[in-house]
């Protein structure tokens, strides 16, 4: 193995380590989130008594499922359950991070009685 190709291999492995990027794992994270929400809320109608535990379960499921498939990231998951009614709701998010490696997804789900 020549000196040039050894250096190329080292350079490639250094670059690969630096190029951990959320955009590469975004689709996997979206699929995990969608599946966890569907599993927890399928066929359920909004209930004020159970709402807190459902929101908690959805975010717990997601945060446990993600590290099994996606490595090298820290995650924060927020789940909002909103009863369908005549009220308005708006949500904004701002971030100070590394745009090359970090990212976020928003997964929306609804049925007849609630938004998630």
């Amino acid at each position, binding site marked *: 193995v020549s000196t040039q190709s050894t250096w190329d291999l080292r350079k490639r492995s250094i670059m690969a380590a630096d190029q951990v990027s959320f955009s590469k794992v975004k689709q996997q994270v979206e699929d995990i989130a969608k599946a966890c929400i569907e599993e927890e809320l399928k066929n359920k109608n*909004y209930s*004020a008594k159970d*709402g*807190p535990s*459902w*929101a*908690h379960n*959805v*975010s*717990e499921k*997601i*945060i446990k499922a*993600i*590290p099994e498939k996606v490595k090298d990231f*820290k*995650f*924060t*998951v*927020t*789940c*909002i*359950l*909103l*009863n*369908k*009614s*005549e*009220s*308005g*709701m*708006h*949500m*904004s*998010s*701002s*971030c*100070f*991070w*590394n745009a090359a490696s*970090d990212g*976020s997804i928003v997964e929306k789900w609804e049925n007849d009685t609630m938004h998630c």
Partner: protein
Amino acid sequence: FFFSSRRRHTRCREVSWARRWVQETAYNATDVQGCTNAITKEIISKLKEISTNFKYIVTCAIMQKCEGGLHVASTCFWSTSTDGNCALRWENETLYCIITVSYTHL
């Protein structure tokens, strides 16, 4: 991480700036999106003044007071010694406002 408890107090003080805005405003469907955007941007810029050694995520949800229910849950996968979050909730006669701030050490 000795920094973290001081940071929490500082952050909550900065975020309470938003409370004054919320308490003076009635829910208005036209303006509320601009309000949430402005609150999150202002909080991020104040957090950057405190320290740029952290990454920050700020979310602001404003909900009109009505007969519907709202539940919010949050979980995190990070280093408990260097990372953290805080959440604050306010209301006035027409709206609820929930703000969460997460920070992770670089």
